């Protein structure tokens, strides 16, 4: 058996850094955190065995600063680096630099990363291996006439996408030939500024698709398994906010077909470690390859819960050279898991980030509730990083009971000081179409456009009453020198009123 690492540097922050630190500790591996100036008191720093300051708050000076991170890893005697998600996780250059410095990058090879990182090349490769892709251009061209002709052939609406793209950047939907030239220019401009590469390509626009992805694990000995699907159709701004498994859209034969297609993709690109193959599923249950996410994903806990496999620990084991301890037939989907992402964002204002101080935080607990979080009362949410605060993941026997459990968990998730989508998510989970599993990637625009928080007269009364009471209590307590604070909520400990 291959020997596991002794010490791993986690090149990330927030909840995913804490998640990886836990996995390290469970495997008796020391964990080294890195942090920017503003993250000095972050939980991942406090929980790691060692922590190294790597630069100022802007990501380019810290969490994207490859040399500083590699230097920190060498200085602390690490033998591997876990990149988490985002930041440097899908950066082939960083993986190469790690290799050169004698550090194992916990992820796929730089070659595989490069191949799947270019969406157009990935498309071409998987097509050659018989994996279905959306009808579209096999290569890129700057010739507007050729593009126009191609669009006419496959029929409108069409999608323009950036080859280097992700997160919806450079993406345009074109409904008529007249819009094409303008959309093409805009897409190229956006792609150039976002990825430094303005290569774009055309695809048939799939109406009302579902986003269904397959989790895979592949070791360096040629074994690969899929760990079933996650349905991630509930998105806002092209970003997922609710993920679940199993998908209400898949039956057993389709699940098997998609799993096999995902494994074909993995083999075609020579992928190792944990990864996700994303598909679009149309209304007639045809699926099309979308892209490969060459990293651990935000929504990985969903899969961990229904399979019982710890994906982060498997990533570490695979990177250290171990073979997968199970085969496809050993894996089963058990029960139903749902994840809700909790961002600091305002659901009443187009989900724009909401920064500020977290005044009071109380996280839900209970059987079947997992909270992957990095927040605490008094923490400052800054504008420097992705505004994800935490993820709530629940497991239960059936989809409906899991939805109920999630709603209860969210109702107990107190976050005051910044806006979060919690009240929005509660309503969404209760929507009859969501309950029925009738989902598509436009679900939020279709059913919740311009959503506003609705307060019943009762809730308004409770809120004002509670506020008035707090202010009144402050007035009736002394402000003399014997008691430093006039706020009884600060000076008085726990007290109850049930004796009458």
């Amino acid at each position: 058996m291959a020997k596991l690492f002794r010490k791993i540097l986690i090149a990330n922050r927030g909840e995913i850094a804490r998640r990886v630190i836990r996995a390290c500790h469970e495997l008796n591996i020391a964990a080294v955190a890195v942090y920017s100036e503003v993250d000095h008191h972050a939980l991942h720093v406090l929980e790691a065995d060692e922590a190294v300051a790597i630069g100022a708050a802007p990501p380019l000076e810290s969490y994207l600063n490859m040399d500083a991170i590699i230097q920190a890893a060498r200085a602390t005697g690490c033998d591997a680096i876990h990149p988490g998600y985002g930041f440097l996780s899908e950066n082939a250059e960083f993986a190469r630099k790690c290799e050169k410095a004698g550090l194992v990058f916990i992820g796929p090879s730089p070659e595989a990363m490069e191949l799947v990182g270019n969406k157009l090349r990935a498309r071409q490769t998987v097509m050659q291996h018989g994996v279905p892709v959306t009808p579209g251009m096999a290569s890129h061209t700057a010739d507007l006439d050729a593009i126009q002709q191609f669009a006419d052939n496959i029929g409108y609406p069409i999608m323009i996408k950036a080859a280097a793209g992700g997160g919806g950047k450079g993406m345009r939907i074109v409904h008529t030939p007249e819009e094409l030239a303008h959309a093409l220019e805009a897409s190229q401009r956006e792609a150039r500024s976002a990825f430094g590469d303005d290569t774009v390509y055309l695809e048939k626009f799939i109406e009302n698709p579902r986003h269904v992805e397959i989790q895979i694990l592949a070791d360096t000995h040629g074994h690969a398994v899929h760990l079933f699907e996650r349905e991630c159709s509930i998105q806002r701004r092209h970003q997922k906010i609710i993920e679940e498994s199993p998908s209400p859209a898949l039956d057993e034969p389709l699940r098997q077909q998609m799993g096999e297609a995902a494994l074909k993709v993995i083999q075609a690109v020579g992928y190792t470690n944990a990864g996700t193959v994303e598909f679009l599923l149309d209304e007639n249950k045809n699926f099309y390859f979308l892209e490969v996410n060459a990293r651990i994903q935000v929504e990985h806990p969903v899969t961990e819960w229904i399979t019982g496999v710890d994906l982060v620990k498997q990533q570490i084991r695979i990177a250290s050279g171990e073979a997968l301890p199970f085969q496809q037939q050993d894996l089963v989907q058990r029960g139903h898991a749902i994840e809700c992402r909790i961002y600091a964002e305002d659901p009443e204002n187009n989900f724009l980030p909401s920064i500020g101080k977290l005044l009071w935080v109380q996280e839900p607990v209970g059987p079947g509730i997992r909270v992957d979080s990095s927040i605490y009362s008094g923490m400052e949410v800054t504008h420097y990083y992705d505004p994800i605060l935490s993820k709530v993941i629940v497991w239960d026997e059936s989809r409906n009971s899991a939805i109920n459990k999630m709603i209860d968990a969210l109702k107990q998730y107190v976050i005051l000081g910044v806006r979060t989508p919690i009240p929005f998510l509660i309503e969404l989970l209760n929507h009859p179409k969501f309950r029925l599993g009738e989902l598509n990637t436009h679900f939020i625009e279709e059913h919740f456009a311009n959503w506003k928080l609705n307060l019943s007269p009762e809730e308004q009364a409770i809120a004002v009453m509670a506020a008035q009471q707090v202010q009144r209590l402050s007035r009736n307590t002394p402000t003399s020198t014997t008691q430093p604070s006039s706020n009884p909520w600060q000076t008085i400990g726990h007290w109850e009123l049930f004796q009458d």
Partner: protein
Amino acid sequence: MKTTWLINHQPVNVQFNKQANNWQITVENHTITLQLASMGEHLMVVTIQDKPHPVHLVVDKETVWVFIHGKPIMVQKQEEETGAPIASAASAAESAIEAPMPGKILKMLVQEGEKVQAQQRLFILEAMKMENEVVAPQEGIVKKIYFQENDLVSLGQVIIELDYTT
């Protein structure tokens, strides 16, 4: 007493009435009767028609953040047209000194008819083995005392009535 509050930045007219241990609160045209209990620094229980609602809260300067049933609500008291905060006007009109927490009256420090100064100690309330002094918000005369030493009192019960007019 009519006041204006901001609920998530929306102004609403609110009227409070205290009757024994019940509060009657009218928000715009809806009147709701409720009881209050405090469970600690950040938790209150509001009971409406025998159903208890947990209310999480935190105070940030002039804003009280409240969390009910998964909904965060920002509550602020609207300032009066004169520019003076309502808080001071309200305290001028109010003469009832209430128990700021449930507990036992440990010591009654004043008598009916006594003249008291602002910030003068009125009684000591023991809660969770801690003594808490309750003082007069402003100068006045003790009009009525409703409880004696060793009496158990609930949150918000009127202990003393002061007369500020003299």
